[in-house]
């Protein structure tokens, strides 16, 4: 759905993140929310009907980019810059107590 302009210009990715366990090249400046738009099957599933959503606003007000980041759920993806080695998993429904 989206591609990085940088990807065409650089030989190597700036970092590697793990999306649902799969090593994925990523670029400086990217957030968790942008990864959700580049990699299939990682958009959050709503707690109500279970349908899949993808980031909508990118400015912290819609909460459609919630994801499990390094084991912490309900992280707002658009406010979270990617870091090398970061693990990102799909958020299924509500955050669980104790996570």
């Amino acid at each position, binding site marked *: *759905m*989206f*591609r*990085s*302009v*940088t990807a065409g*210009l650089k030989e190597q990715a700036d970092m590697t993140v793990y999306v649902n366990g799969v090593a994925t090249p*990523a*670029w*400086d*400046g*990217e*957030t968790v929310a*942008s990864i959700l*738009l*580049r990699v299939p099957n990682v*958009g959050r599933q*709503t707690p*109500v*009907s279970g*349908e*899949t*959503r*993808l*980031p*909508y*606003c*990118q*400015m*912290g*007000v*819609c*909460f*459609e980019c*919630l994801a499990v980041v390094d084991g*912490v759920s*309900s992280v707002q993806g*658009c*406010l979270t*810059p990617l870091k090398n080695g970061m693990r990102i998993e799909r958020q299924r429904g509500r955050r669980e107590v104790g996570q």
Partner: protein
Amino acid sequence: MNYDVVVIGAGPAGMAAAVKLAKLGTSVCVVDEQPAPGGQIWRGVERNATSPVFNALGEDYQKGSFATAAFHAAGIDYQPSAQVWQIEDGWKVFLTAEGKSRCITAKAVLLANGAQERSVPFAGWTLPGVMTVGAAQILLKSGGMLPEGDVWIAGAGPLPLLYATQLLELGGKVAGYIDTSQKPSLKALSHLPAAWRDFPGLMKGLRWIWKLRRSGKLIRGIHNLRATGEGQLCQIEWESKGNTHKRDAGVLLVHEGVVPRIHETMALGCDHDWNDQQKYFAPRTDEWGQTSRKGIFVAGDAGGIGGWKAATVSGEIAGFGIARFLNIGIDAEKLRRDAALDDRRKRATALRPLLDALYAPPQTPIADDVVVCRCEEVSAGRIREAARASAPDVGAVKAATRCGMGPCQGRQCGYSVQALVAEVNNLPVGDVRFFNIRPPLKPVTLGEIATLQDVEL
């Protein structure tokens, strides 16, 4: 930590105010959600200085570099990547950063937390592939992301025009641009003479429109736009002159203007006024940006939409206003006059009456089967049903349907629910109040609250 002033938001208004206040010798802390200063307009401006997208983002974006440099040089305590979840009398600002909560106190608080895009629900707007134009532009500023496939832009206002221009410049492609604005009324055109005060701004807008017309991809006079697909956007449909049109679509970017972020001022119980032309609430302020609550100031788009230039000026004005409030022995009136702030504000807002009249929010009733509350998945039909069975109040509808109770806390559905309650009760929209905003302003875990130390609660 104790400060004279806490500024919330590091966009044009927050940075301008903080720099002024620091120069006047007050202690300032700036708290911001983003990892770097600039707000949404200048998001990632420092990092992007060496990026291939920097040129395409244009002159107004590049100007952000000067503002962030001045901000860093001013010796201000800066707390990035922080979420403010509660503000209490005194003033106590509770925030969470990196999983830990803190309370900072200040004599005055400046809310410079900006705006958000107006939510306009339509069939299929929750499908993956549909997002706002602002979101796409932020993606461009965060890692140089360009949309791929059949990209459609549908909306009204300067932002979609600007984004389309930036996208084409970077070699992106647009399948079509649907202008959803109404035909300009005589009343709108009556604002044209005043708009000439901002001649470059006016010309820039006309140039964007002209470029778009020449591309042959401009579609006008449509209604009933909808997005369709199973679990993902596949097509868009609309009606025009009695015919239904269908097109393949991979990405649909929508935009119907921006509205102030009011959750903070609403939660603080500040007085608000209804802007009936642009259909939003804005906190009522005096000529220094102070709200009805002493010591709570507002600057920038959070006080009413004016754009980044006006935000910078209002930030400077609020800076002087706060210094005046703190009684630190300055002549705020003179400083304001010497910096010609009121003239600068007049110039910066010259285009606004024309833009507001040209791009009025859409007033088409929302179809019953359209989801209005994205978080709790409440349809317009259910909201109407609840509204018919209760007093003309959004609170009753919220209690009956859960609309506005999800993680976004009504930031997406608030104005739509208000409009639906007004519609059902045949009331002017401005006569129906907004949701009651209660703490926390942003989701916070018990674990995070438990990290609070040395707080007298």
